[in-house]
């Protein structure tokens, strides 16, 4: 399972990095989303991977899954969600202003 998660994090990061380096705002936003997925998966795995383990202390249970990474991932998801929404709105605004979806705003104005 560790290998599978590692490959997934690596693939998502590579894909996200590739897309963020593109020149158009749409792939960049998708790339940022992929990077956020990758980092969330990565954070989740930092508490070590367990299946069917309790997170809250109960009697008679000795092995627990770490609840902190889950809380961290939850926070990170909310923040990245808000930031992505902001990036989308800003890309739309840039498209409306420059009549171009290039990240440098190369459009009608500068032609």
């Amino acid at each position, binding site marked *: 399972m560790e290998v599978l998660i590692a490959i997934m994090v690596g693939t998502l990061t590579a894909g996200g990095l590739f897309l963020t380096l593109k020149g158009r705002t749409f792939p960049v936003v998708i790339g*940022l989303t992929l990077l956020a997925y990758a*980092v969330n998966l990565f954070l989740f795995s930092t508490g070590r991977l367990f299946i069917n383990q309790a997170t809250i202390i109960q009697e008679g249970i000795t092995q627990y899954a770490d609840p902190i*990474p889950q809380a961290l991932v939850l926070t990170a998801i909310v*923040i*990245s969600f808000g*930031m992505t929404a902001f990036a989308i709105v*800003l890309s739309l605004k840039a498209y409306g202003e420059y009549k171009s979806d290039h990240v440098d705003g190369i459009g009608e104005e500068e032609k």
Partner: protein
Amino acid sequence: MNIATIVPLLIPLLAAIVTLFASKASLSQKRIVSMLFMVMLILSTVYALYALSIEDYFVYTLGNWEAPFGIVLVLDKLSVILLITTALLALGALWYSISAQYDVVGAHFHPLFWLQIFGINGAFLTGDIFNLFVFFEILLLASYSLLLHGQGKGRTKAGLHYVIINLVGSTLFLFGIGILYGVFGTLNIADLSLKIAQISPDDVSLVASAGLLLLVVFGLKAAFFPLYLWLPSAYSKTSAPVATLFAIMTKVGLYSIIRVHGTLFGTHANELAFYYTPWVFWIGILTLIMGTFGVMSAKDLRTQVAYVVLVSVATLLIALGINTVGSINGALYYMVHSTLLAGGFFLVADMIANSRGTIGAAITKGPSFRYIILLGSLFFAFGIAVAGLPPLSGFIGKLMILQGAMTYSMWGVAFTAILISSLLVVISLAKSGSQIFYDTNNERSDISHEITIQHFYPIFLLVSIAPLMVLFAHPITHFIELATNAFFDPTAYIEAVLGVNLAKDI
């Protein structure tokens, strides 16, 4: 007394909420409320300073969960220096935005302004790396909106670049945090510091890479080479009060390097002890070279001031890289000085741009305008201060840094870089000043009558910091020395946060 820790956070948050709900209130009411909160913020930081004269550390456990299980806020001498700087800078920025009517050009200026201060103060007070990330995001989200506030030309493009690079930076931050949590099982800075001292040899390279990953993130905020390209356009395109407030944002990155890297990888960290300082030093030198070239080549005064900010960041990075008692003392002194003076310089550049009409702050021959002598004198004073000439505070800051560099092995590089850069900055600013103020046309700018003496008060406030920091240099440096001692020996910090006695327990 513990209340001194939380109040500088609660006031901006409360101010943001009140000004948001008062959006239907009249403009003057909103302004009065905002100014009242600003006075309270300044009083609270002064109270925090007073509280620190009684005890060295104040730890506020949120929800009464003890560290390292809960999250904590820590007030110490290092954070209070930056809290006071932020409050003074914010007073200048808010005052100017009110007197020059910058808060009416778009919606919700006041709530965004206060949320930005909330994020900045939070980053200075937190004792937990994940919380540092959260406060970074708060200040960034407010800064994205403030950067775009007022719809200026080219602002959307600068904003888009700024947002995207910071989103990538946030991702890197989380990767760094994840590695540290995976290895140590804690995110409390004090607890991490203890655990790094007993690190197993297998984990050393992993932790070293996490530390450098965090250095990249903080360096992105501080704008170091090669991650500074967003800064000149973002700072020069946004409105003047926002640019002034942003002068503290690069210092948030530098503060995080001092706080996180200094505490985690201090002398106790065995083979990782200060392993990051050569990186910081050489990156600082490169940033200084690029920043100086930027100052020399700028065609617009506002871009030039943005590059002056970059030069001051580079000087601070070099001082952190040298990492002697003297250079850290100098860095803290220079950090306060450069933040407040660079912030004021943005306001002067904006006044010049507003006075000259269509050509703005372009460094060319232009019309004469009202208050040209007063603005020229202020330009002269700010120029001397930021370039580091005597008798103003920039000189003392650079002198302290260079004195601290005497015992460093690469002292020649540091001396050459800082002194040549200062000379080139002086020459460039002199050239800009002579073109703007001496090489004027005969006709007078017709819009400059809109500028009144009221617009100058916040600039007077910020420029007065330079002579005051010289007059009170002794008490200020004495206080800074105490902060530096705590930086080199974080034992007391760790003991205060975790409530343990290290001498007895280990």
